[in-house]
């Protein structure tokens, strides 16, 4: 029987989380989010441009009662990320934080050592920490042990649309996790999202694939359907994969 996704005591009807970056227009973002039925959205923090304060993405999100998950994007060290998390808590009145520390601008690979250090501190500071991480089963357990509310392993590099390149390691993480596993980054098509859910992921976070689609609203619907289908298939139980054919019809009666 289906149970709701619960993170730090908060229940979600939708297992599709959505990032707010890269949409061509805030109104389009709002429409896509509505079509996706996502209940949690990510955003970043930046120094305000005093001269033109017109980038109000929060209005529609708050009006639609979305759960906000600010990220620490731009942080290169644990210290940066901890500062960013406290800024986010102050600005957005939430103690939820997507911890991401990626010092390398080319591949945006998350720094495992700085991420673990920051997670330890932020959990002690009262944050609900959801760390973006490589699909490293050992690190996933370490992050769980220091009190992270979920883990967010990557499928592939951020924005790459490559899908579940890390599939084998995601499966180990899912098998071993005692906290929700949200596959984040690299999911480029609804089929990738469905597959992550079929593997037993508790949710997925989508941004680029939806936002840069020529029709983000239709793509949001496609992802919502894919996530629901993948989850249903996981709960139903997938058949065993076999090397050779196993007949679905009797093979002998016709010629006998």
């Amino acid at each position, binding site marked *: 029987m289906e149970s709701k996704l619960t993170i730090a005591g908060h229940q979600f009807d939708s297992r599709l989380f959505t*990032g*707010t*970056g*890269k*949409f061509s227009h*805030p109104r389009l*973002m709002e429409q896509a989010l509505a079509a996706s039925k996502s209940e949690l959205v*990510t*955003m*970043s*923090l*930046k*120094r*305000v*441009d*005093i001269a033109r*304060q017109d*980038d109000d*993405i*929060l209005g529609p999100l708050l009006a639609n009662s979305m759960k906000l998950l*600010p*990220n620490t*994007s731009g942080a290169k060290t644990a210290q940066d990320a901890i*500062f960013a998390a*406290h*800024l*986010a808590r*102050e*600005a*957005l009145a939430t103690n939820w934080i997507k911890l991401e520390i990626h010092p390398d601008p080319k591949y945006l690979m998350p720094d495992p050592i700085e991420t673990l250090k920051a997670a330890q501190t932020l959990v002690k500071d009262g944050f609900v920490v959801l760390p973006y991480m490589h699909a490293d089963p050992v690190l996933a357990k370490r992050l769980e042990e220091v009190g992270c509310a979920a883990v967010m392993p990557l499928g592939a590099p*951020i*924005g790459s649309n490559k899908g579940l390149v890390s599939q084998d390691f995601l499966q180990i993480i899912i098998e071993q996790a005692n906290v929700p596993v949200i596959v984040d980054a690299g999911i480029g098509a609804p089929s990738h999202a469905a597959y992550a859910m079929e593997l037993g992921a508790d949710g997925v*976070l989508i*941004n*680029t694939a939806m936002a840069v689609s020529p029709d983000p609203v239709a793509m949001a619907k496609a992802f919502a359907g894919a996530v629901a289908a993948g989850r249903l298939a996981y709960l139903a139980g997938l058949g065993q994969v076999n090397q050779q054919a196993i007949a679905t019809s009797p093979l002998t009666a016709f010629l006998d």
Partner: protein
Amino acid sequence: MQQIKPLRVSINQHNTIELSPGVEHLHELLEQLSIDTSHVAVAVNNHIINQDMWLLHVLKDNDQISVFGAIAGG
């Protein structure tokens, strides 16, 4: 009589401004800058000042003020 020189502070690492007459506290500076304060965090010299302290926080010459707000992101 010697005129008192106005205090100067930097805003978001770029602009340096003079505080208007009567501006002594952080909340008065934010009013001077016409900043929508509903969803922002403010740091002075890299220390976050909680919103309930904006009324009381006295500004000093050469303070570095950083105002952060939410933007789209993944």
